[in-house]
């Protein structure tokens, strides 16, 4: 970041370096395979983490890169979950096409909502996203004939993946499936953030006032990223449906929208892997702490959140990478 570049070839090389897969990333994707052999009893938890991480990455695109603060993204997660569930109930249980269709549907809803989102900022933006989230959850609750209401959607029947891998009781297929979805999601998100589009999103986040002054149609950029993010969140929801063969109102809840923002702050926004780390910390903490004390485990998350915000303003991953840079000179 500090080597002076005085020729255009240096500049090309510098930009290539920003986008390239780092050894840490490769190590990470190898490490996530460990649960298959070492902790098979935790495979269900591991799939939950992978699904939540995909959801968190989708929120990172809008919140971390484009600076759109949202408190209602569970709306897309839940819509995707219900879409995938209803599709199997309608007689089509093939999972991969189910993912694509659920993603397309939520992306379409995201596109419609985006016209409203890009017109407001700050508190109004929070209120609109919050309102839309609550509205969708209530709607799903009152449409009991369609969604199963508080009982959840029953009788979801998912066919084997590639017509071969059954979703088994131990969760091998589920984890492999969720992990593959996360990997594809991160690879797509990576490509987006390292494009000229990703650069313009950072521009919007860094200085919204300057964007029109360089001729940028920034509202359209925000609509595009919001649409993509909604689609990705919907796919995460659909993965949850496929791996658990049930959908509950909980998938649309405000709690889920708020939790994902907490995960992002914990892990660090605007760096994709921060979203994954935050999701992992949050889900593991919940799993471990709620065993000891189911009522009060949020106490510890609250404490951790405050410590991170105070001492690691760029999140845990941001703090770690800063430390590594300093150690490396």
């Amino acid at each position, binding site marked *: 970041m500090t080597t002076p*570049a005085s020729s255009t070839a240096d500049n090309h090389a510098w930009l290539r370096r920003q986008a390239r897969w780092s050894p840490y990333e490769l190590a990470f994707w190898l490490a996530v395979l460990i649960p298959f052999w070492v902790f098979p009893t935790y495979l269900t938890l591991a799939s939950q983490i992978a699904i939540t991480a995909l959801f968190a990455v989708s929120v990172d695109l809008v919140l971390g890169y484009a600076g759109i603060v949202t408190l209602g993204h569970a709306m897309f997660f839940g819509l995707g979950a219900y879409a995938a569930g209803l599709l199997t109930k309608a007689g089509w249980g093939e999972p991969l096409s189910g993912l694509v269709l659920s993603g397309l549907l939520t992306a379409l809803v995201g596109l419609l909502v985006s016209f409203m989102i890009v017109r407001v900022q700050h508190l109004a933006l929070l209120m609109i996203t919050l309102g839309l989230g609550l509205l969708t959850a209530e709607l799903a609750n009152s449409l009991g004939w369609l969604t199963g209401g508080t009982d959840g959607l029953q009788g979801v029947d998912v066919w084997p993946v590639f017509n071969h891998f059954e979703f088994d009781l131990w969760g091998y297929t589920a984890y492999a499936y969720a992990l593959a979805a996360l990997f594809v999601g991160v690879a797509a998100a990576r490509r*987006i953030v390292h494009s000229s589009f990703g650069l*313009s999103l950072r521009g919007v986040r*860094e200085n919204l006032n300057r964007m029109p002054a360089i001729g940028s149609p920034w509202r359209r950029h925000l609509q595009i990223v919001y649409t993509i993010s909604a689609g990705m969140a919907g796919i995460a929801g659909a993965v949850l449906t496929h791996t658990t063969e049930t959908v509950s109102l909980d998938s649309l809840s405000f709690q889920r929208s708020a939790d994902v923002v907490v995960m992002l702050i914990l892990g660090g926004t605007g760096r994709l892997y921060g979203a994954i780390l935050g999701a992992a910390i949050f889900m593991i903490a919940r799993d471990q702490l709620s065993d000891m004390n189911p009522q009060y485990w949020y106490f510890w998350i609250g404490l951790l959140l405050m410590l991170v915000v105070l001492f690691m303003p760029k999140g845990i991953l941001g703090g770690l990478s800063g430390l590594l840079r300093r150690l490396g000179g």
Partner: protein
Amino acid sequence: MSEIMLATQSVRKSFGSLEVARDVSIELPRGARHALIGPNGAGKTTLINLITGQLAPDGGRILLEGVDITHAPVAARVRRGLTRTFQINTLFPDLTPLESVVMAICEREGKAAQFWRPLTSHGDAIDEAHEILARLRLADEATRTTRHLPYGKQRLLEIALALATKPKVLLLDEPAAGVPKDESAMLFSVIDALPEDMTILFIEHDMSIVFTFASRIIVLVAGGVLLEADPDTVRSDPRVREVYLGSAHGH
């Protein structure tokens, strides 16, 4: 009679009871090197905000190459070739100059929304960014984070970002604001070397710079045009001496 690139016609603006633009009518011919001067609070920045669309006028019209742009959005005016810089740095603190300028070029070329294409595949934009940064003596700082650049370099980046839009008309709001005197002369020599057919209006408080680089001077006082003339006429005008040159000046 050369072609008029930018014209304001009786542009008016008030903030409450404060009139900051009173029937301002100015014209910039192609290739102009006009200076806009006036005491603090005269309404110079406001006039630029009105011309570029950051503020909507209460009345009057703004024409770019004869086309009425009074109601066009800011970004649309930029895409038509009307660009400004800011008196107070309006940069992207966490991006590098290279990234900022490449972004502005991709926006200009309508390629910014191509989310499926790696940034590194925009080779022409990256080369052009280097060329612009080199012209503004920023080549060695191209990959340093903007927030860590010395202030003078940040002022140059203000201009680099504007140039990346390929402006036909460039409005510079105190490009050397806050820059030490020796550096500001360098900065204006860079401005002076811009293509001759680019139409430039700059705001500047330092009269020696104004008289060196401007071919024509517009004097704005309390929101109204007091005088528009060549440097010699302005220098000797008694009204200008009284309201502007004579007054103790804060810059």
